């Protein structure tokens, strides 16, 4: 590149320093600086999210008279202030687990439907529609859940209580509209279906055709092809897709805030109204909170942040490992 510079430059052509890609020109330096700077800025933002939340959280927790992890109450405005995340952690985990149990099998089914069962002409538009559904804002799911799904689920709740009440979990001890963790779980399941489906579908489409054709050539039925070649290949993809969905479900705010009727109790009767989640508690409690109350909410938000960070990080690590594996295979 130095050879194209005009002749009036000093006789010794500037030897390219550093990496071969850089020419040492000012424009390049600025451009590299800008682009690397924005990359570093993102890292700084991530780090400062952790730092700022931790700082405010420590302010709140240090004045907490209860145990932050085990107290079953949220009263930072009281004297002395007492609050703990036990109920929130329980509600968040239970509603997300219900969502996962419902959504993951159905999503795998839909992904298989699109990748292996649907008529070819239907497959592409279906994938497209699923992606569109992922774009529906959560608040719309929220009001649909509260105004349409909740009344609709009353019958199902009675039925579950009638036939599965003996399991304790499905026992309904309070009469009333089902603004419960179970309903929240169902709504979350509907909400995370699109993302779990679209990630799994992508993995299923990557299965080497050779593997499937080999199975077919041995006389396998379509289900045997899926069981023997598609699912083993896609296992890690399915796991990470589910964890991405779990991350969404853990942090979902509006759908829970509209559907759940919150209360600070821990109850395994998932059909009874009550309970709470981190995000719901923050959205619902923020309005009345003073500055200390907001710090307390930030402290609970920090726990949620760490939780989603762990889940998403694990999901990404699994995907990254898989990439190398399939790369060697291709």
């Amino acid at each position: 590149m130095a050879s194209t510079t005009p002749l009036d430059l000093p006789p010794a052509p500037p030897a390219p320093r550093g990496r071969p890609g850089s020419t040492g020109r000012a424009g390049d330096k600025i451009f590299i600086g800008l682009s690397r700077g924005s990359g570093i800025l993102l890292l700084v933002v991530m780090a400062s999210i952790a730092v700022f939340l931790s700082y405010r959280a420590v302010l709140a927790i240090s004045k907490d008279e209860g145990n932050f992890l085990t107290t079953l109450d949220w009263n930072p405005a009281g004297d002395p202030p007492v609050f703990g995340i036990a109920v929130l952690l329980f509600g968040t985990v239970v509603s997300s687990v219900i969502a996962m149990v419902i959504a993951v099998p159905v999503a795998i089914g839909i992904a298989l439907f699109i990748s292996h069962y649907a008529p070819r002409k239907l497959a592409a538009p279906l994938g497209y529609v699923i992606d569109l559904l992922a774009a529906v804002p959560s608040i719309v799911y929220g009001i649909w859940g509260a105004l349409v799904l909740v009344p609709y689920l009353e019958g199902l709740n009675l039925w579950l209580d009638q036939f599965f009440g003996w399991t304790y979990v499905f026992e309904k001890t309070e009469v009333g509209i089902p603004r419960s963790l179970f309903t929240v779980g169902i709504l979350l399941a509907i909400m995370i279906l699109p993302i779990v489906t679209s990630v799994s579908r992508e993995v299923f489409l990557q299965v080497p055709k050779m593997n499937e054709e080999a199975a077919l050539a041995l006389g396998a039925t379509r289900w045997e092809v899926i069981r023997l070649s598609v699912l083993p290949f896609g296992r890690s993809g399915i796991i990470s897709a589910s964890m991405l969905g779990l991350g969404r479900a853990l942090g979902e705010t509006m759908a829970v805030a509209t559907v759940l009727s919150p209360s600070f109790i821990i109850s395994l009767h998932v059909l009874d109204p009550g309970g709470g989640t981190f995000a719901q508690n923050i959205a619902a409690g923020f309005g009345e909170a003073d500055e200390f109350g907001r710090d307390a909410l930030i402290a609970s938000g920090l726990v949620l942040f760490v939780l989603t960070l762990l889940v998403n990080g694990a999901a990404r690590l699994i995907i990254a490992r898989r990439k190398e594996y399939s790369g060697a295979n291709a």
Partner: protein
Amino acid sequence: MSHATTTDVQDDRPRTTPEPRTGGLSSRSLPRWAPLGFAAVSLALGVGIGAAAGWHSRTQWGLLAALLFLAISYAATTAVENQRQAKDRLATSVVWVCFLAAVVPLASLLWTTVSRGAERLDGYFLTHSMAGVLGFEDTGGVYHALIGTLEQVGIATVISAPLGLLTAVYLVEYGKGSLAKAVTFFVDVMTGIPSIVAGLFILSIMLMAKIEPSGLMGALALTILMVPVVVRSTEEMLKLVPNELREASLALGIPKWRTILKVVLPTAIGGITTGVMLAIARIAGETAPIILLVFGSQLINTNPFSGAQSSLPFYIYEQYKVGEAASYDRAWAAALVLIAFVMILNLAARGIARWKAPRTGR
């Protein structure tokens, strides 16, 4: 299905001399219309039993019918064909049932929003604010929220698009080593940050610097949510640009930064635009940061840098919480506006992607 057809054709011969079921091509098989028949029978049974037992919810009828369908087709196939075929048919049915079960709520969501939203949506609704309107009155509109959404999303886009673009350029064109790996990993993790956590982050800054709520603060939280999406999609698009183009440009002695600006980015511009539009569609529906940082207002505030504002998703939540029939109508109408906004962005983005695709692909 194709399996069933081939066996159908060969089915004529062995009918006269019944053979043991061995699973070979000459074994007996169900006719092609069998699944439809099972479906009809189980649907009838499900409705019948549901109505007879007096179950309240149609969902139960549907669930029962679905279970009956699985049982009937498994039993029938085992009896007529063999266990392997029965399992195959069971899997096919389960996959179909999964698909249909997922379509029902999603269709209901869209249908409810469109039908209930259309009742209230008109020119008046779009051009009036909620100033002086009480919850139970059936006037008022969404104008102030529209302005809020457009401004907040606009500011977020103005910050996120260049930031995301530059980061993606760094990752694809320059990035090697541990810094690039760290950025890639944390961008991925950032896509999963709950919107409420992004809101809390900005809130903690506001508490420390004593900043009052404003549209700008909401936009900053939206930026945190938007940047990783832009980075990911731009990265994918830049990777699609053929290396020959870069090499040709560099061979002509053009510096790398001009190569990127004049060759790489223009080649991928369609895909990049698509990614940015999808990211806009994603953040336009975020409610949680707005609750924490913009605070909501009934009045028109065109200045995003000071004072409380509203936004479409916040407006929906606010009207839902009022709990009156008139406010539910407003919430649905606003939901329809929001969904239309998001869907139009999505469709336009995918349209651009398709229209520009051949040029980047080759």
